[in-house]
């Protein structure tokens, strides 16, 4: 227990009649990265706000770097760096001025703050923009500067609340590289995200939260294992009422059928020779198959399996022709 840098027990918070957090438990050992995964409104930001002393829990308790977030908030603040979801820097100041201000307020001497600011501007490729005011920064530059601001005092614990939400793909990948670099320095990190691939990329362990509760947790591999391995996706030439039943014996879970009845999706356990078996079975039932795909599970699948609800991202990037989105798939219980 003693090497836990972030620890929360039964943490709860409500705003009026809305329950934002309904008793969550978190444990992050020193030097680890925990990915907190959930859709909008799941309670991720509330959890981060409590852990970073911005918000008071209604119940439960939490410790960061060994200090209670309520009774010993000043000590917690000395040990954390925070990159919030919304921009928390001064728009009217330049990048450098922002870093100097935050470094000084974080307790650095003027000389230290200046040196550290320059170091971070270099590290995050912001030197050229250092003396421009933030209004002229792009979204990706702001996020990097916001992250740099959280690192000024070299805190041992970092909180990143949706660090790549709203970024274009290039900026996102760049942000990932930056975050990976941090971890190499031995920082303990809690990262929230709605992007499953982001959690998969960055986190050692993932907790999935929904409606203010932890609904699953483990490594990415463990989470994937929980939904039974690979996934079979079929596109039929035309809809066929008995298609679900025909493949039923070979799949390991509910078969989801799209509204037009042409696309089927189901989890499968043993992928060896499965594709031909399924196609043969459908053929014997007089059903013509246009396309068969066996996919290794993504965290999207995990999330859907856990919440019976697609993630926003899965909806956004679904291509109706080749990949049936979860949204237009109906569950056909076997």
């Amino acid at each position, binding site marked *: 227990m003693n090497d836990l840098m972030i620890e929360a027990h*039964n943490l709860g918070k409500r705003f009026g009649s809305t329950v934002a957090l309904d008793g969550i438990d978190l444990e992050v050992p020193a030097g680890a990265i925990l990915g907190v995964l959930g859709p909008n409104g799941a309670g991720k930001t509330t959890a981060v706000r409590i852990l970073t002393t911005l918000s008071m829990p209604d119940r439960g308790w939490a410790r960061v770097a060994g200090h209670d977030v309520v009774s010993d908030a000043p000590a917690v603040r000395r040990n954390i760096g925070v990159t919030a979801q919304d921009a928390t820097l001064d728009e009217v100041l330049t990048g450098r001025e922002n870093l100097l*201000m935050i470094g000084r307020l974080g307790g650095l001497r003027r000389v230290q703050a200046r040196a550290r600011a320059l170091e971070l501007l270099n590290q995050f490729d912001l030197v050229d923009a250092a003396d421009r005011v933030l209004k002229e920064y792009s979204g990706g530059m702001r996020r990097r500067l916001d992250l740099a601001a959280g690192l000024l005092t070299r805190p041992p614990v970092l909180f990143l609340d949706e660090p790549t939400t709203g970024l274009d793909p290039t900026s996102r990948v760049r942000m990932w590289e930056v975050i990976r670099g941090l971890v190499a320095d031995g920082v303990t990190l809690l990262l929230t995200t709605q992007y499953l691939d982001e959690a998969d990329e960055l986190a050692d362990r993932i907790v999935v939260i929904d409606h203010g509760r932890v609904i*699953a947790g483990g490594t990415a591999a463990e989470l994937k294992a929980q939904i039974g391995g690979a996934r079979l996706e079929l596109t039929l030439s035309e809809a066929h009422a008995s298609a679900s039943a025909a493949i039923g014996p070979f799949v390991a879970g509910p078969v989801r059928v799209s509204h037009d009845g042409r696309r089927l999706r189901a989890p499968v356990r043993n992928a060896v020779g499965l594709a031909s078996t399924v196609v043969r079975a459908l053929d014997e039932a007089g059903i013509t198959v246009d396309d068969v795909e066996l996919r290794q599970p993504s965290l999207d699948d995990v999330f859907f399996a856990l919440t019976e609800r697609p993630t926003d991202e899965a909806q956004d990037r679904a291509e109706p022709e080749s990949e049936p989105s979860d949204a237009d798939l109906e569950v056909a219980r076997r």
Partner: protein
Amino acid sequence: MSFTTVSPPRTPAPASPGPVRPVARPPRSHGLAQRLRDVGVLTGRNLLHIKREPLQLSDVTVQPVLFTLLFVFVFGSGVVLPGGGSYKDFAIAGLLAMNLTTSAMGTAVGLSTDLGSGVIDRFRTLSMWRPAVLVGRSLADILTAAICAAFVAATGLAIGWRPDAGAASILAGFALFLLFSYALSWGCACLGMVSKSPESAQGIGLVILFPLAIVSNALVPTEHMPVVLRTIANWNPVSAVTTACRQLFGNPNPSATIHAWPMQHPVLASLLWSIALIAIFAPLATTLYRRRTTD
């Protein structure tokens, strides 16, 4: 479906958390030196805002010039001072008071803007002295007030206002104005804490500050006011400051004959008013700030 790795136990939290090994970081108590540094850093930040966005200074540059010219030439043509003297000489101290009073609203607007942005959240995750946000704002607003005073005084001088006193006395008059304006800015800090947006801070500020500035002896002598207004005006802190400065500037001061205590001891009254406003509103603003930033 079972999750072997998940354990969301719904057991109640232990009464006292178990043993911990707090991470050793240099302790940082909020000693005076640190408080001063935090205040200095945030004052500097707000001064940079003034420098970067000079257009937002129109409230303390264009408006004072306009008001000074309008009041002197429009009101001045109709007001006869009891005891004689030129309205121009009478009006400048009053216009200083009026403009400084209404421009104190800038504190409310500035703080409200900060509260609406994420920057306060960032400050709150730092191990800084929290009231520095308010103190830094109020100190930077002294500069705004000084700019405002300079514009009124310069306009006055340009149209023929002449103080008739020693340099020390005149400077004391300006110092009194700035102290009063500083005190008002703490009142406005409270306003900034309770208003939902910068716009509403400005709206409410105007409703409070404008009557405060007008129901006074700043622009017209009080002797012809209805008795209720006259009593309010005689005890209005704006009147005390205006009277004190007319005295210190050596300008016409019809209020000298009024028996209300603040009119007889205007300098002392101004100091007491300013101190009282700070003593009430600075702690109140700090409390409101704490409350506003706790959820």
